[in-house]
């Protein structure tokens, strides 16, 4: 990406000096004055300032990067799923009816891509040789790996809805209210999903001696 162009987004660069955009990394991306809301960014992208889409990319990647890695199953799959989700969101941006709720809209796209990628990855992993994985040498590492794998095994037994709720609550540490806002699902229903997921994990952990 051309840094010169990024530094002077269309319609912004010559009117005033631009301040670094809060919440963005390292100086390349700039915007005027206070931080733009997601809705404002969406509207300006739709108005032709397409470079501003980078703001949404960075925000969503930071907010949902761990979630995507957890739901997709591994970092490479998560990277690909998130990239594809961003491209789909960009292409369909005009259909985002409520730009102020862009993150919720994007989250659905991302979740669908992650579930699809996870299913595809699961089929491929069964063809791999487990002995190719690098062995952990110390007893402590062995135990940590077993605990981690217990979580992964438990995630496999969950429905997509339970998995989403569990990751957002237990891995990401979000509140039920925030998750409810993001998913558009009631708090009580979310609690039931998380409870079932915890029970599944407890079952997996009982299997570790």
């Amino acid at each position, binding site marked *: *990406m051309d840094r010169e162009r990024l530094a002077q987004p269309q319609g912004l660069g010559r009117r005033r000096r631009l301040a670094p955009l809060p919440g963005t*990394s390292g100086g390349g991306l700039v915007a005027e004055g206070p931080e733009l809301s997601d809705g404002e960014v969406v509207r300006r*992208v*739709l*108005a*032709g300032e*397409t*470079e501003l*889409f*980078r703001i949404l*990319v*960075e925000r969503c*990647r930071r907010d*949902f*990067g*761990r979630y*995507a*890695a*957890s739901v997709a199953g591994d*970092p490479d799959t*998560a*990277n690909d799923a*998130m*990239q594809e989700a*961003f*491209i789909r969101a*960009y*292409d*369909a*941006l*005009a259909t985002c009816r409520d730009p102020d709720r862009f993150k919720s809209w994007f989250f659905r796209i991302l979740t669908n891509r992650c579930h699809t990628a996870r299913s595809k990855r699961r089929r491929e992993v069964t063809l791999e040789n487990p002995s190719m994985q690098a062995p952990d040498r110390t007893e402590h590492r062995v135990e*940590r*790996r077993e*605990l*981690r794998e*217990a*979580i*992964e095994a438990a995630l496999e037994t969950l429905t997509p809805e339970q998995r989403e709720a569990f990751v957002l609550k*237990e*891995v990401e540490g979000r509140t*039920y209210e925030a998750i409810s806002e993001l998913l558009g699902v009631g708090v009580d229903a979310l*609690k039931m999903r*998380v*409870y079932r997921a*915890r*029970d*599944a*994990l*407890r*079952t997996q*952990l*009982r299997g570790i001696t």
Partner: protein
Amino acid sequence: MTDAMEFNESTQHHLDGAGTPPAAADRADLDRYREALAAYREALTPVSAAVDERVMAALAGRHSPARRRAYWHWFVEPHAVSVRPAVAAAAIVLLATGLLATRAWLANRALPVAQPIAAVPTLPPPIHAPDIVLPEAVLVRFELHDPNATRVALAGSFNGWASPGIPLVKGGATGSWSVTLPLPVGEHQYGFIVNGKSWTPDPSAPAQVDDGFGRTNSVIVVGPRGVINP
């Protein structure tokens, strides 16, 4: 899953950050659960920041969503259109011409299909007075007076001289035998076969001819209005 594997409600609330600490029976599992979560979080690698650059690079060659929206809006939103009357008239004429040409083409193309044979009404042939439709066959009455005959038949060119011939009917005690046949217009030769064996020319025929084998045939000429007498 068995009940023993489920956290009780109090423990679930505790994990949610509310409620009292769990019972001793659940405590070991709770610690194990937290340890597993910590191990999982520690190993989790979030999506790389390099994805930002990959995404923006991938989007560089695509249509902007603004253009996509513009296309969509152009189709779904009303437009005010200004047209010069002369252009509108020309367009109407062109459109009408096209419609008529299409209609004519469709009519020609569809005619054989659109009129199946069964659907064609059967109409009587038109009559053009004072023209007279002449009959193709004329009724001719053959008669032979022979009171001694037991049976009489007729053979001629009109039936291929076939034997035993066309039987005549005896009319009462007068000894007269007769039959009426439809004959085509033209000349015909014929004779009577009396009692199945005796060839007898018609004594009332207008002409007689020798058949070249020693036998005499009677001749009549049938015209459109009946037998023509010379």
